């Protein structure tokens, strides 16, 4: 970043004519802009150190990370290798497990997001008996340790024939349906909590004018609430996707770890010997499994923009 006193300071994303006019403010902003950049860069740098270490070590030979620090690899003589990536990408079950991960994660993200949006809308804008108490109970359920739900729920799933290996009409493994339902239940408390909070602060006059125009709740929900809450929905989708994508235990319980159904986490974990032999493969595996969540994050990041509500509130 250039020194800000001479040239105009780095512009904040939003700049108005009024702001441009104020020179004195600009100079002080210039000084703080330098500090701002230093602060942002320092925090970011501190944050990426572990990830950078992981990245560099993923290109080093197996035993190397144990004898010298990853930063030493940045100086010659260079000895990078793709061995770990070769082992990970060469895993025989990798392609099917990528598919299985999508098969689990996409519905297990869509279903709770949609159901949570319905519920959050009601909690935020409808009046009904016990509303606050039900809502609080939902938030409290965030604290339920998942491990304690496994036995009762798996028992239920088995009784309903939703155990992995049973085939539903159409050839879908019933375990998938079980895990979608499970992840939906596990994800709902946070999803509803987050969305209701965002829905609740939408401007009241929006709803009033919509009602005057004769729009029903379904129209208001799809035409007003959802579009205005896109950043919240985007962040929820990102997190629910991530949690499900990175989950290992829930998948092993409801779906099992056999190759036909195993998600990516299971396949990648199994590259390492049961006592931890070749644990360097985990470095490359971490990046292989990170690709999809990062793409999701990238593609949803454009919804984190200011001004969705612009013009809807009286300044």
């Amino acid at each position: 970043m250039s020194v800000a006193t001479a040239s105009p300071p780095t512009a904040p994303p939003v700049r108005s004519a009024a702001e441009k006019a104020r020179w004195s403010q600009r100079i002080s902003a210039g000084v703080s802009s330098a500090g701002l950049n230093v602060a942002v860069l320092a925090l970011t740098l501190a944050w990426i150190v572990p990830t950078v270490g992981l990245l560099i070590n993923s290109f080093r030979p197996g035993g190397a990370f144990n004898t010298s620090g990853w930063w030493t690899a940045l100086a010659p003589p260079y000895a990078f290798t793709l061995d770990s990536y070769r082992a990970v990408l060469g895993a025989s079950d990798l392609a099917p497990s990528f598919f299985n991960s999508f098969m689990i994660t996409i519905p297990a993200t869509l279903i709770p997001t949609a159901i949570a949006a319905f519920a959050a809308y009601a909690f935020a804008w409808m009046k009904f008996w016990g509303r606050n108490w039900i809502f609080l109970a939902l938030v409290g359920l965030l604290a339920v340790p998942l491990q304690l739900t496994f036995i009762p729920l798996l028992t239920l799933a088995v009784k309903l024939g939703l155990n992995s290996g049973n085939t539903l009409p159409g050839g879908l493994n019933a375990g998938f349906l079980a895990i979608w339902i499970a992840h939906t239940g596990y994800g709902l408390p946070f999803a509803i909590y987050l969305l209701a909070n965002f829905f609740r602060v939408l401007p009241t006059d929006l709803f009033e004018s919509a009602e005057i125009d004769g729009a029903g709740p379904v129209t208001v929900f799809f035409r007003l609430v959802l579009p205005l809450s896109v950043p919240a929905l985007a962040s929820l989708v990102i997190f629910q996707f991530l949690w499900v994508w990175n989950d290992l235990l829930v998948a092993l319980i409801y779906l099992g770890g056999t190759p036909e159904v195993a998600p990516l986490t299971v396949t990648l974990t199994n590259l390492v010997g049961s006592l931890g032999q070749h644990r360097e493969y985990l470095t490359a595996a971490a990046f292989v499994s990170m690709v999809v969540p990062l793409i999701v994050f990238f593609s949803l990041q454009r919804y984190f923009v200011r001004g969705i509500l612009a013009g809807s509130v009286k300044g």
Partner: protein
Amino acid sequence: MGRLTRILAAMAIIVLGVTACGTSNQASGKIGGTVHILGTWTGAEKDSFDAVMKPFTDQTGIKISFEATRDLDAILQTKIAAGNPPDVTGAPGIGTLIKLARAGKLPTLDDKLDVSQLNANYGADWINLGKIDGKLYTLYAWASLKGLIWYDPKAFAAKGYEVPKTWADLTALQDKIKADGGKPYCVALESQAASGWPGSDWVKEIVLSQSGPTVYDNWWQGKQKWTTPEIKQAWTTWGQILGSNGSNVYGGKQYMVATTFGDGGQGLFTSPPKCYMFNQGSFITSFFDGYTPKPTAGTDYAVFPLPDVNSTNAGAHVVAGDAFVMTKDTPQARALLKYLATADAQDIWVKRGGGKIAINKQVSLNDYPDAISKSLAQIVVDTKIARYDAGDLMPSDMQKAYWGAVLKFVQNQSSLDSILADLDKTQATAYASP
């Protein structure tokens, strides 16, 4: 309330289309079907397992559906409790299996395997090991040997050290190495959620060799308290190996707890050596193979069994191995267990290395891939007193407390009495049926 069920049903139909397909495998004369196996083998071990299973599938037409997890206790207990067990489970420890068997959740094998054939091919110890309360529940297909001291013969030769034959030799060698300014041992205890287990190996090996199999059996069965003189003596003997504050060990107590057990052997191969001896089971060679530069069996490393602490128990060895258990009685599961007990199956396993030793006596010693594994197999054949890993036999919470106690002990040996008293407290509850 019924709405969601309808939605789910509708969803299933929309989503799945209509083409239902039911393929039934009817290979003529073969059993066919699938056997679902839950185990812990991953990586190279899984490849070996696949190799062992291939002839089985070819012969019987039974497909293998294998799933691996490192959280075997959690997954197995959940699946059994929920009524969705795998057909066969291969477990590295049987503490949980004993509980399940006593709760009536496991079928016995006495009437499902050909016991007379098993008696002919297996040593009595290995069959008895599979019995819980007198009934046969588990079957072992391979063993690994514990209580092995790995060393670099070049380093020993350079200093004129000789392989110790007796416990006195070992302590003399230990003193000599120290007098020469070296460190006798490398000890590495870090192993994530199982941290401490390598130290527990030392202790159980000493218990067996020092106080004999009766004490050992009573101890893992929860009938002998940790605070009894025999068990306490084993810990103090190990404490003498470690030296006060871990002074006999490279890097001392901090290095012991912070170093991942698989990396512990690296100190043998540095120049000058950081340590001269490293106690680990036969599987540790799979970690040696990952070191840079890769050490060569025979020239860079060799092995000798931990000398007898007490000559009355000469030739006592601690062994380990996966216990196969039928978690669901199906024809396929029976066929698999029968196959695993055969010399053919175990032969494939040992030929692929990884420190595995066959239990079936028909497997030829010549089938082991290198001199070291052959010599280890010889030790197992010659062993007069073989005992299975005590920790793996204890209930899981007892075993974890044992591992934790190791970590506390190496950090402060003088607190041994309170550590053992705590272990007694765990012992008092751990053996109760769930």
